């Protein structure tokens, strides 16, 4: 960018900011809309159906069933010592894994399958998006 162009563009920017400023309440409106989006998650209650030790592996299986969705989650060890989360669901198209170090998203495959490998140990939550509604699990220790 040549110097004069930059000067003129800066002038234009300042002019537009003064003459056509964003409505002052717009960020608040958006923050509120995002917060409402988060509230729309219905909290699920999960129950453990089994906890087994097979050849030293420890797998935990949790389930949940409501009118709108069924969910089965299996948490197990990877050969390298990290954890994996496998799931089977109905009424869900996308699953989000919230961990202390970030979130990951998995699409739900045929038969309602989804999986997250290489999950660090610690508390996680799952967010599940159905066609009309979204759900969230309580924290699960993996």
């Amino acid at each position, binding site marked *: 960018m040549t110097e*004069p*162009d*930059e*000067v*003129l*563009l*800066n*002038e*234009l*920017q*300042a*002019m*537009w*900011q*003064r*003459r*056509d*400023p*964003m*409505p002052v309440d*717009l*960020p608040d*409106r*958006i*923050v509120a*809309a*995002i917060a409402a*989006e*988060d509230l729309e998650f219905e909290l699920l209650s999960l129950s453990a159906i089994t906890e087994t030790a097979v050849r030293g592996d420890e797998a935990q299986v949790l389930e949940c069933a409501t009118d709108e969705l069924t969910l089965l989650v299996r948490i197990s060890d990877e050969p390298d010592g990290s954890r994996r989360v496998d799931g089977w669901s109905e009424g869900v198209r996308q699953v989000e894994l*919230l961990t*202390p*170090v*970030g*979130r*990951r*998203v998995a699409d739900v495959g045929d038969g309602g399958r989804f999986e997250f490998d290489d999950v660090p140990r610690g508390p996680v939550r799952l967010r599940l998006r159905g066609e009309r509604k979204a759900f969230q699990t309580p924290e699960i220790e993996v």
Partner: protein
Amino acid sequence: MATTGGTEQLWNDATRHFVHWRDGDTAAMDELVRLLTPVLWQVARAQHLDEETAGDVVQSAWLALVRNPDSVRDPVAVGRWLTTATRREAWRVARQRGRTDPVVDEDLPLPASRSAEEEATTNLRDRSLWHAVAQLSDRCQRLLRVAAFLDRPDYARLAADLDMPVGSIGPTRGRCLAKLRTLLAANGAGPTRGANHD
């Protein structure tokens, strides 16, 4: 709000907030919204949308981000992702409605009152710029408004949205600015603010 020179800092801050939010700090999203919404507003208004529609368009872009954060593969690109999402949505809405009345032809809104001489000078210069911009082609108006707020606009995407070849964005911007200078000179406005007025 950043000046063009401070845009890099703006994008760096945006990336930092976004990473914190992805790591589970929900308050970081509020920071990100407050940081980037003023820029996204300008991007939406560049499509000549009315205020309410422009606000809705910006909000849609934010909700799209929150609903699918993984569509931003590299956090460094979050600012670009949002501006592109806003520009596309604004473009889509504008097309759907048919081109609405150009915002630029409206009477100048009165700025929040500051004081005296400085304001008079600023008003005068803004008025000259506003009216000169209004005489540019629609394409020039949109291109300059986006260019004024984004230091390094993503030329490939911008080209697609403006229906222009990628290689012509830079030269077109140069021609639009040259045309603007000619109009300013013809209207008796000086080349830059800070020039002597008597």
